[in-house]
């Protein structure tokens, strides 16, 4: 993203970010407010759609689990840009299907001050083997106290563990204080 990104209006900036999230055949795409009702409705919709398709039971369960974590990550971690209006939304996700499996992409604005911590965490997770992830998960489960937001810091570890794939991500600066955080995970089929 070029330096003049900050001069763009937010709607245009987000449209460009969203456009990059599409991959393969889209099953569900959403942008807007992320709340408990939206999450419940989305999960219900996806469950109904998946039962129409011929998806292996094990893959379906894994996908559902990972979706829950991805959507609840959005719910807990979206940062609202001051001055943005509701129509511009504050979170987005796309579930799509390719020959490899199901891609779950999420995007949300985060304070740029959080980037280094988030990046360090994801890079660490991506560097671990299957067994190391299991041990890391158990360590965090047993030792880390709950955050007020309800997240136990386990979401990303769990996503990496269940999918067995690396977490792909990027940060696109919107202005000096906020960036668009994009996360993409593959549930292999």
């Amino acid at each position, binding site marked *: 993203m070029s330096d003049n990104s900050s001069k763009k209006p937010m709607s245009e900036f987000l449209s460009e970010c969203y456009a990059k999230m599409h991959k393969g055949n889209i099953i569900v795409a959403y942008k807007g407010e992320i709340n*408990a009702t939206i*999450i*419940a409705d989305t*999960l*219900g919709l996806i469950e109904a759609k998946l039962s129409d398709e011929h998806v292996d*039971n*094990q893959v379906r*369960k*894994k996908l*559902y*689990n990972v979706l*829950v*974590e991805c959507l*609840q990550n959005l*719910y*807990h971690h979206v940062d609202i840009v001051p001055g943005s209006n509701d129509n511009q939304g504050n979170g987005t996700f796309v579930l799509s299907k390719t020959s490899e499996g199901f891609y779950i992409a999420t995007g949300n604005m985060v304070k740029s001050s959080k980037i280094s911590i988030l990046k360090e965490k994801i890079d660490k997770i991506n560097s671990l083997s299957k067994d190391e992830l*299991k041990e890391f*998960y*158990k360590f965090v*489960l*047993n030792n880390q106290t*709950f955050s007020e937001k*309800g*997240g*136990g810091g*386990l*979401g990303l*570890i*769990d996503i990496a563990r*269940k999918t067995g794939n690396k977490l792909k991500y990027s940060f696109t600066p919107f202005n000096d204080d906020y960036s668009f955080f994009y996360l993409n995970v593959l549930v292999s089929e």
Partner: protein
Amino acid sequence: MELLNIEGTPKTPTIVLNPSTGVIDIKGRSIPENSIEFYRPVVEWLDEYIKNPQSNTVVNVQLEYFNTSSSKCILDVFKKLETLKKNQKDVVINWYYEEDDEDMLEAGEDYESIIKVPFKMIQIVD
């Protein structure tokens, strides 16, 4: 002590805590956004129960899905059961999983390695 019966919803499990039989059932889905709030009455009930428990406590956990937020709360529930064990009471955790659900089996094994209470892994056969 009274029986605690929490009815299930699409996001939360059915939970029955029976003080007269010592049987605890947790069944369904546990994917609420705020798990601490949901599990608080369960943890509080257990705090009371362990003061005057049955000689044998059986915990049946049959979850279809649970999120990572619930995983911490489930650990808290299991940690209460460790106290029973320490007090020479019998406790067993029956961890149910569907035949092809390796993730659920593995989740049970994770708890088994952390919690000092006997686990029984039970495969659900249709």
